[in-house]
């Protein structure tokens, strides 16, 4: 049996280190919002010959009079060259302006076989609206899960169980966000989806352990010290936690590997944080939520004058 409660400070230290690392990365890299959330325009063209990015920037700036950033990208698997044009501005670019960009580029590079591959325009106002909506979604799921866990685990101290589950969830949300920041993936709706999925999935782990604690408490009675009860429950459900997480981790890794090889940006930016989130979800439940809940219970017992074992 692994004594999770005894080693709790090691786990807390590890988690604090990861969180500090994430915060440092946020200061160095900054938190980037995708144009889905901050608004703007991105145009992607495939092309055949060679193109000069700086020259292209000037051509586009001349055509629409907006601050432009051009990026050239090539993809091994598809043998394709991609020109990515990003336009800034407080007002959404009109479709007429988009056309102007395309025609200016085809005029400037008549032999490049420029073809529009993808374009996305979001008005800043709507982008902010999406972003707020996403944050509301995350907050709402926290609240509902706290309520549900509190209700279902009344007899093992609903509030403490719910609160510690939420602490573990914050841990996971932090890890997922840190992955977005460290790998410089701009936050977009995949971010919201990844966070929500990890929340739903990670709380699963916590629930399985709480469920076991609830059952063991009935079986063994109240006399067993809380830490023994918790350690026993965690150990009993450990194989399940590891195996389930392995299955999920395997699925999401397959998605990531394929998205990486074939350059499917929308999926890659979502699968990588999910991979880390899966590990974090498993870890935070076993090493953070259980021991923290034990500490809370022991503290309560002490206050009530019962000596903790």
């Amino acid at each position, binding site marked *: 049996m692994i004594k999770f409660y005894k080693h709790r400070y090691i786990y807390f230290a590890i988690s604090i280190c990861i969180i500090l690392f994430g915060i440092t990365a946020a200061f160095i890299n900054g938190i980037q919002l995708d144009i889905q959330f901050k608004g703007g325009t991105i145009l992607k063209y495939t092309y055949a010959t060679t193109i000069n990015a700086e020259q292209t920037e000037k051509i586009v700036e001349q055509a629409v009079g907006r601050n432009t950033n051009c990026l050239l990208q090539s993809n091994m698997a598809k043998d394709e060259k991609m020109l990515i044009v990003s336009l800034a501005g407080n007002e959404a670019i*009109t*479709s007429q302006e988009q056309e102007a960009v395309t025609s200016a580029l085809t005029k400037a590079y008549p032999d490049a076989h420029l*073809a529009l591959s993808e*374009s996305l*325009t979001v008005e800043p106002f709507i982008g902010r609206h999406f972003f707020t909506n996403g944050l509301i*979604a995350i907050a709402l799921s926290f609240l509902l899960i706290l309520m549900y866990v509190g209700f279902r685990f009344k007899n093992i101290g609903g509030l403490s169980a719910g609160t510690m589950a939420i602490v573990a969830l914050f841990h996971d949300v932090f890890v997922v966000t840190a992955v977005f920041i460290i790998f410089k993936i701009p936050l977009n709706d995949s971010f919201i989806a990844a966070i929500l999925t990890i929340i739903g999935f990670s709380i699963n782990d916590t629930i399985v352990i709480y469920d076991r604690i609830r059952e063991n408490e009935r079986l063994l009675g109240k006399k067993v010290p809380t830490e023994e009860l918790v350690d026993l429950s965690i150990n009993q459900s450990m194989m399940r936690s590891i195996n*389930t997480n392995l299955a999920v981790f395997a699925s999401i890794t397959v998605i990531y*590997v*394929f998205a990486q090889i*074939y350059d499917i940006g929308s999926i890659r930016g979502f699968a990588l944080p999910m991979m880390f989130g899966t590990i974090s979800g498993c870890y935070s439940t076993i090493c953070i939520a259980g021991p923290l809940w034990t500490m809370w219970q022991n503290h309560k017992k002490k206050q009530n004058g019962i000596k903790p074992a």
Partner: protein
Amino acid sequence: MNSKRVFFVTVLITAALFCISIMGLKIGNFEIKGADQMRFGIDIRGGVEATYEPKDLGRTPTVNELEAARAVIETRMDAKNITDRDVTVDKNNGKVIVRFPWKSDEANFNPQKAVSELGETARLTFRDPDGNVILEGTDVTKSYARSSQDGTDPCVVLDLSNKGAEKFAQATGRLIGQNIYIYMDKTPISQAIVETQITGGHAQITHMESMQAASALANKINSGSLPFSLVVKNCNIISPTLGSNALAVMILAGKIAFVLVCLFMLLYYRVPGVVACIALTLQVTGQLLALSVPQFTLTLPGIAGLILSIGMGVDANIIISERIKEELNSGKTLRRAIDTGFERAFSAVFDGNITVIIVAIILIWLGSGSMLSFGYTLLCGVIMNFVAGVTASRLMIRSLSNYEKLCRPQYFGARRAG
């Protein structure tokens, strides 16, 4: 029913449903579309999604106005031969959302231009040579192109409302021999000489240079009955080649993930592992049917959600199998172990699934764009998990425990020999 047969019946039902979900089924008027005929989002099949908003209106447009805008956009799309489209009106936010595919055989199709042209719906006016408005676009109920009786002279026909007919009769009486100009916003798009006074409410612009030009003008006049012009605020264009590659890749990823998870379950849990694989097939089948029967749009994140729920779906089987193993190790008989295993595992599976349902519903409710599909496949996966991972699994395991050859605890992962 003989309990031994339950397993095979469940397998057969799963196999039959799986075949239907992949290949489709058609009996008379009843049709379930196969997996290849699913309604894919524009990120898979390529296409355009644009959100139009009234330009400089300063208020939320009324439902009628939005419906008019929708009708106009649809008319214009008809004119462009875009039939497979989806035009929805967002009443609360006063927007018209237009989605249409960019087919891979349309090499000359310019999606950017199409988006602009659809939004070109502007204030349409008929003016006299001094620039006074004599007729508004709203006075025109319908406009269409027609060739004259001998087929040589293309013209545009205008049907006017009662009020419009009155105004037009008055104006044409005053302007015989002079030009009437048609403006879209501030741009003149056409002009015509008034030959006689037009009183009947039917006007014709004759001598158009071609039938094509006539129908183009008729289209523009039609959009003039819209009380405001539209501007594109959000727009997403994806080329069909980009999307179809991504689909093939994601399908392959899904197959590999499925095989990996199944292999793991078989090797680790043996008999309950076999049951888990069948349950997983049933779960995926249910998800596919939940997509194809109501023709719910499936996007790339939606497929990711499907693959993810393969991993999450086995959780129920893992919890149950672990529990059965434990009960066996504590000395129970196989039958008792299976029953108590399911009983004790159920509350954990139930609570776990409810929390995923909570986040999936939030995703569907508040998520934007392609994430809707992700929330939907996730939700269907969890609901199907109750059916497949819990109920069907229990039926199958109980049925299999009736076969004496399989009744060895080590086949269920227990330590002791049977």
